[in-house]
């Protein structure tokens, strides 16, 4: 790589680790400050599903992040950001995360998947290897 080449399009991303119960108060504070929801991202991890809520103000982005442990419920963001219902229905269907009280709830019918939590690959591979060991 040459030093003369420029890295472009750098817009700042700030990531903040929070506890699941801190989601609504933090999101509410961001909404009041003018931030809007950009997306919710789920990533399958060995210890659960990592959720990242991205908010934007002009060209800056801030991310609230926590781990949704198996068996624990996550509050819905829809009381603060109504548009979150799309992301939350998707994450529940594809990653099997229990999200409580989504304002527009498709009751697990967003995607007609043969296997619930199909995108929770880490968990699925662990389950199948455990079954294989048995």
């Amino acid at each position, binding site marked *: *790589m*040459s030093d003369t*080449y*420029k*890295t*472009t*399009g*750098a*817009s700042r*991303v700030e990531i903040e680790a929070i506890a699941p119960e801190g989601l609504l108060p933090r999101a509410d504070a961001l909404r009041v400050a003018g931030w*809007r*929801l*950009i*997306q919710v*991202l789920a*990533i*399958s991890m060995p210890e659960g599903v990592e959720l990242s809520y*991205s908010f934007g103000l*002009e*060209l800056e*982005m801030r991310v609230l992040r926590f781990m949704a442990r198996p068996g624990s419920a996550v509050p819905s963001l829809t009381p603060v*950001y*109504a*548009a979150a*219902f*799309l992301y939350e229905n*998707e994450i529940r*269907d594809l990653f099997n995360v229990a999200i409580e009280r989504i304002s*527009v709830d*498709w009751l697990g*019918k*967003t*995607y*007609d998947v043969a296997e619930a939590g*199909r*995108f929770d*690959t880490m968990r699925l591979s662990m389950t199948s290897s455990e079954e294989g060991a048995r």
Partner: protein
Amino acid sequence: MSEAAKKEHGPTLVPFGPQHPVLPEPLHFDLLLEDEKIVGAVPQLGYIHRGLELLCDKRDLADYVHVAERICGICSFMHGMGYCEAVERLYGVAIPDRARWLRTFWCELERIQSHLLWLGLAADAFGFENLFMATWRARELVVDVAEETAGGRVIFGSAIVGGVGRDPDDETLRRCLEAMRPARDETLRLAEVMLRDATVLHRLHKVGPLSRDAAYLLGAVGPMLRASGHDYDVRRAGYAAYGEFDWSTVIEEGGDCLARALVRFREIEESFKILERVVAAMPAGPTTVPVKGPPPKGEAWMRVEQPRGEVLYFVRSNGTRQLERFRVRTPTFANVPAMVEVLKGASLADLPTIVLTIDPCISCTER
């Protein structure tokens, strides 16, 4: 329906889509109607979901560009480029100047053909078939240039991790600009025709309004957001070569279908101007930089302004050539809540027009 019957039965549920004559792609709504008025709309996704994001951990990250480009057949290059830029950030690699400017050229080419495609579809929905054919005739010239410079008419195939895979010479680029001049002139003429036609204005003006506040809070993006008065365009972040020349963000205040149409018309004109500046200032030099070995562990974000609005790409590496996670948040996905808001209170007859002025891309949404 009588008032008594309305009270007894409540609103009527009418499914709209996923197959509908006016929709080029399978979009589905459950509409709640009171007579002809829409009082509620519940969107339904997932009809053709492909699970492309899940493929990232099964493909080499350089090969995955081919998958990313196939997220959408209308803005394929920008998907490929957005993915590449995210991966390049992961590596900490900066690509050569000429590659950045060529990426900008193809982005704007794609924006023009996408907006012309939308215009044709919208004209067809109004029953204005001559306009539909004239628009797509103009678009053909733009797609021809894509084929000559990038190698593909739909899937450009020219974005690669570390630069671009094609290097059209400067003479070819100048000739292509000339070849597109009739398309530019024709678009201006068609804009005059379309936006002065009384029937078209009747279908667009004050139909499907989205307020400035609602557009912002519901997370609308692209022309949908800018037609409601917001000066927001991710190209201002300066990715590719957008930070190196002057260009204007197109904004309208009306928030209705007409404003959304106007934004796209004016963006076509602005994109042609950008193409001229890009070709005039195209730097010489290499178009790729080697990107070898596995990337470091970590994650990277990238935002790109596509024809339909902002797209967000996320990549996370576990230190191998297969990414742990690739995520793309597409503009139509972000525009669905605003679309639902706009439909409330609209007439059923206006629904196709409203949906088309949002320019939904279900292929992107069902990535």
